[in-house]
């Protein structure tokens, strides 16, 4: 080894003697010096930002109601609405009649003004609001004890309490960046923990891409391209190969030596960045140093090409040119691959499933509803392609009978909680080949349907509303009959129109007779509907004292007897109203306040009276509703967020058995499926044998778990007691169209081409210690990005081995 080490060490010395190295060092030191003054501090989250008002419609309606509803006079909402600037109030008063559009920034401005002047506050009025623990603590402070920042924070919390659901929940602390002691004018509404995660998962990979992956690699190729051509000069090569060393070893040693240039630069840059992150951002993360080997590895890919070109043509210029062409090719393949991910495979990924009898219905990330066609062994789209838009949002369908599913499509719901316009329930009926048919209005912003007993529940951020399932089914039958009769009898339509006309006249007469108050109540009703309140068929079902605050989650427990509801750190469980009683609201059985980050995205699952609560970046908690106590908590996955949970058995083992111990499936954002079960007093978690899982669901009828994985494949499985999966059915759709192109062309091309661009994902994964990242999309949804940590390493590694083998073969066999 000694001779080869001598070659490597000689390359080190050669690199140190390079002027370009010292120029690169200087540039690195200047960059580090420029970055060193960056700092941050945690400040109270006070100011409202336009982005926080993703549901501007609801907030607008709320403030408008506070202005015109006599019942809100003197309440927190009324007082706050009255404190809005004059021009805004003028616009708000017209909302009920005209649904006047109001810019989000105008609403945010109005609220921010209220932060400075708290004359709107009245202690008595705010007693009736849902006050968070933080607000209660701040309310205890006297005016002398409270700081200005705390006062503004308290004002914000009071505003949030007055506008429940109108604002996206934000953490109590924000990050304020500074440079050389000067604070930036904008705060980042993330916790310190989230900030550090952002730095790890986004900032460092971006720096890796640009500083290390592009600039340093290019610089490195410029410097090292001459190594091989110079070695091949007769006076140098003949002497080297006349020494008692193998050519293979010589070439490999030269190759390793060539990488030393980049190693020297990368070490300084990364260690410098790590020191700045630790010193200035309190980010003591040694995993940042992973950037060093990954960057050198990235360079090694391109250097192998440069080396081969140098061997072949013995010209540094040609080496650089060929390497740049190769880089361009890799880039193009990467871009096309990204397009296929985004527009071909991504939209086909299954995001939710529901099964009824033998029929499986799924929604996809591309906002498409699909039903599996056994004969064609493929998925049939239920929406026309033209009507599918990425900004829309599909509510997960639920089965209300063996033949009928219901769902809803919120137009523009991806960016606006309440979407644009009114929301209608879509009925998917087997008899109509599951073609979506609009049936009846549902509350604005409905994000989840649940069947609880004989009720169909619609949950939005304002509350829980219900309509009888039988009523819906009846409406379906009526609608079908109407559609059948449509066009057959035009006379009946005319009669109906006449009748309507009569009704209208009667109404006009009634309006004339109504007092101003009644007219106002009508407008208030409009505003209620705008802010997600009751509509014709759906009526509130929660007790009045329960007000929902995001994040929200709900599930049915105890074999369908209880409804479990999570609302910003609080867990409620309700029983059905007694059939004999006149009560129309749910009966609150118990509630529990959970510690930890109440603003975190939350998922729920129930098995009997056992409930699993999974909050982002926290251990999952196992609660026993019978005792109302926490059974335990357990970390699931290697620091990856839980994105979904599901029960594995929701029916009592025996009659009246609602205390089943239960087992749960937990899906983490890295696509791994875990089994969480209770072993005595302790909880245990283990992985189930499926990877790349996108979503899970539970079919209560068959007591089977539905697992969607590898884009659009579905497994219907039972989980045995030993954790093995017993498959009932596997759905493997035959790829068609662009999917076929992806399978036969793009994927092989991406496998053969070293995916150097994906190495930034490797860095993100290694630095953050996670296999994925999950960005909150509101209402329990998360945009999951899975890091391909090992694929690029494997692809690049195989490429290096192939190219270096070829180079060694040429170098060993060729006459020089």
């Amino acid at each position, binding site marked *: 080894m*000694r*001779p080869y*080490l*001598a*070659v490597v060490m*000689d390359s080190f*010395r*050669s690199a*140190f*003697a390079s002027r370009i190295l010292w120029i690169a060092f200087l540039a690195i030191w200047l960059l580090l010096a420029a970055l060193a003054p960056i700092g941050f501090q945690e400040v109270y989250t006070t100011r409202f930002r336009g982005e926080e008002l993703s549901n501007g419609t609801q907030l607008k309606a709320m403030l408008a109601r506070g202005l015109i509803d006599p019942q809100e006079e003197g309440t927190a909402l009324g007082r706050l609405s009255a404190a809005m600037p004059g021009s805004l109030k003028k616009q708000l008063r017209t909302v009920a009649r005209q649904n006047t559009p109001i810019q989000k920034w105008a609403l945010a401005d109005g609220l921010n003004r209220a932060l400075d002047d708290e004359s709107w506050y009245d202690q008595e009025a705010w007693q009736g609001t849902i006050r968070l623990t933080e607000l209660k603590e701040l309310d205890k402070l006297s005016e002398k004890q409270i700081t200005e920042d705390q006062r503004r924070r308290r004002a914000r919390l009071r505003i949030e309490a007055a506008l429940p659901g109108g604002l996206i929940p934000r953490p109590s602390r924000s990050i304020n960046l500074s440079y050389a002691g000067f604070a930036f004018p904008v705060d980042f509404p993330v916790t310190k923990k989230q900030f550090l995660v952002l730095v790890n998962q986004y900032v460092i990979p971006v720096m890796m891409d640009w500083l290390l992956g592009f600039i340093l690699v290019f610089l490195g190729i410029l410097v090292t391209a001459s190594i091989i051509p*110079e070695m091949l*000069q*007769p*006076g*140098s*090569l*003949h*002497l*080297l*190969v*006349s*020494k*008692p*060393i*193998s050519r293979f070893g010589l070439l490999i040693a030269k190759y390793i030596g060539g990488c030393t240039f980049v190693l020297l630069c990368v070490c300084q840059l990364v260690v410098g960045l790590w020191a700045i992150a630790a010193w200035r951002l309190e980010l003591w993360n040694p995993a940042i140093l992973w950037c060093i080997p990954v960057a050198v590895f990235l360079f090694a890919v391109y250097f192998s090409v440069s080396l081969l070109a140098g061997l072949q043509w013995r010209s540094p210029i040609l080496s650089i040119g060929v390497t740049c062409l190769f880089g361009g090719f890799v880039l193009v393949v990467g871009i096309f691959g990204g397009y296929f991910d985004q527009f071909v495979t991504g939209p086909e990924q299954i995001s939710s499933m529901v099964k009824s009898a033998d029929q499986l219905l799924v929604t996809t990330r591309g906002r498409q509803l699909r039903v599996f066609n056994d004969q064609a062994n493929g998925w049939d789209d239920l929406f026309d392609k033209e009507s599918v838009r990425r900004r829309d949002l599909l509510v997960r369908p639920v089965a209300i009978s063996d033949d009928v599913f219901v769902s809803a499509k919120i137009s523009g719901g991806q960016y606006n909680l309440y979407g644009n316009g009114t929301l209608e329930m879509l009925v998917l009926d087997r008899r109509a080949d599951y073609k979506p048919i609009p049936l009846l209005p549902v509350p604005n912003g409905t994000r989840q349907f649940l069947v609880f007993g004989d009720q169909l529940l619609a949950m939005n951020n304002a509350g829980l509303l219900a309509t009888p399932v039988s009523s819906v089914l009846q409406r379906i039958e009526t609608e079908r009959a109407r559609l059948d009769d449509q066009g057959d009898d035009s006379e009946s339509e005319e009669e109906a129109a006449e009748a309507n006309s009569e009704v209208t006249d009667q109404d006009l007469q009634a309006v004339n007779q109504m007092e101003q108050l009644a007219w106002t109540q009508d407008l208030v009703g409009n505003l209620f509907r705008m802010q997600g309140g009751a509509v014709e068929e759906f009526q509130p079902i929660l007790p009045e004292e329960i007000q929902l605050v995001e994040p929200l989650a709900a599930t049915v427990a105890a074999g369908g007897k209880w409804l479990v509801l999570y609302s910003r750190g609080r867990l409620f469980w309700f029983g059905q109203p007694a059939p004999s009683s006149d009560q129309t609201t749910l009966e609150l059985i118990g509630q529990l306040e959970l510690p930890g980050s109440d603003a975190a995205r939350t998922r729920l699952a129930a098995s009997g009276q056992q409930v699993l609560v999974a909050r982002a970046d926290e251990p999952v908690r196992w609660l026993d509703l019978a005792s109302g106590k926490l059974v335990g908590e357990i970390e699931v996955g290697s620091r990856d967020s839980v994105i979904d949970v599901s029960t594995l058995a929701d029916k009592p083992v025996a009659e009246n058995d609602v205390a089943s111990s239960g087992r749960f499936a937990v899906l983490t954002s890295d696509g791994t499926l875990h089994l969480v079960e209770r072993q005595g007093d302790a909880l245990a978690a283990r992985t189930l044998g499926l990877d790349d899982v996108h979503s899970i669901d539970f079919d209560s009828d068959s007591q089977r778990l539905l697992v969607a994985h590898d884009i659009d494949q579905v497994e219907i499985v039972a989980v045995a007691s030993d954790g093995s999966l017993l498959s009932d059915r596997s759905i493997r759709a035959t790829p068609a169209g662009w999917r076929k192109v992806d399978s036969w062309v793009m994927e092989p091309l991406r496998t053969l081409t070293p995916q150097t661009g994906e190495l930034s994902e490797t860095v993100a994964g290694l630095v953050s210690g996670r296999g994925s990242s999950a960005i909150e999309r509101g209402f329990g949804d998360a945009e999951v990005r899975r890091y391909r940590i090992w694929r690029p390493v494997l692809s690049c590694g195989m490429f290096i081995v192939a190219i270096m083998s070829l180079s060694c073969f040429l170098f060993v066999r060729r*006459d*020089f």
Partner: protein
Amino acid sequence: MPGSGLSNGTFNAGKLSDEDSLAADSDSVVNVDDLKKTYHSYTWRGRKHVQAVRGVSLQAQRGEVFGLLGPNGAGKTTLIKMLLGVIRPSAGRATVLGQSIGSPVARSRVGYLPESLRVDRHHTARSALRYYGRLSRMDAQSIARRSDELLELVGLRGRDREPVVRFSKGMYQRLGLAQALLHNPDLLVLDEPTDGLDPVGRNEVRRVIERLRDAGKTIFLNSHILQEVELVCSRVAIMAAGQLKAIGAIDQLADQGQHRVTIDVLQTANAAAAPHSTNAAPHSTNAAPDLSPNAEPPLQLFDQQGQLIDLAGFPTLQFTRQRVAVRLAMEYESQAQIDQLVDRLRQSGCSIVGLSTAGESLEQTFMRLVGPAVGSDVSEESAVDSLGSVDGQRETQSQAIQSMAVQEAGE
């Protein structure tokens, strides 16, 4: 000696007999047997083949300085590359120090000085020696010790910490020689070791080579400088067009060529050379007639009585008028021919004031073997170098007689 058969113009591409091979194996450091090398290249017009070495066989014995001569494109470098394992032979076999060429053991016992040594810019002489020493698998102590010795030997002591970028070409060559000797090799392959050196430097290198030879090292020397080869080599091989034209000791090679005798005859009133009449037969049948208008007509030699001396028995004889003598020059094959000519002149009363014989110089041998066509190619490169060889003609006899005769003529 002429006719010994060791070396002649038909030796090229000769294959050693098995007996020769066995005999050679016992003491030969370099043993090459019918080695061939064909280069293949691909062009738009198809595959091309270039036969660089066409079946060369030779041996270099232990302790000798073996010179390899040949014009550009003769295949010398290709042969050396094959011996060093840099390229693979197309056919034939060869051993170096009893090992197959290119084997690590063989390479570890060979020191090589390439023609145009390149040392990376970041090196000093000492760091370069350290680097090459490590490549030769030497330990640090040995490298340090040998570096001191060799830097002293090649005259780089005191400049060993300077970056090589400041070195002249001569200093590079010295450094190259030092690195070739660093691991104390048994065989030294020197490719143009004095190339680019000034006369003093050449002399120093030559002395180093002689010391190494005296120390028992075997040296394989490839050089264009015929004088250098003549001075230090025990044996030489001459290659041309990929073939071995001759191999042997320099004296032996020279004996294979033509020998020349020169006799100076004193001119007196009667005994003198004069242009022969147009009807007289020319004495030199080989002399080509000079047809230029100003050319001096061919000479004839007359005795004391003014009679034309009959030298018809010496058809290659040529005359040249000197200041006080007439010079007769003739190529000969045996001493009897010289004796006959001297007798004939003395019988005619001619006074011989000088007589000298000369063998073939190495350059003449080289030119004779390589041929005028190839020699003309060589001439451009070696015109200056070969001057020394011309001056170095070996005068073997009677310089004293010649000087005495000149003195007499002066009197």
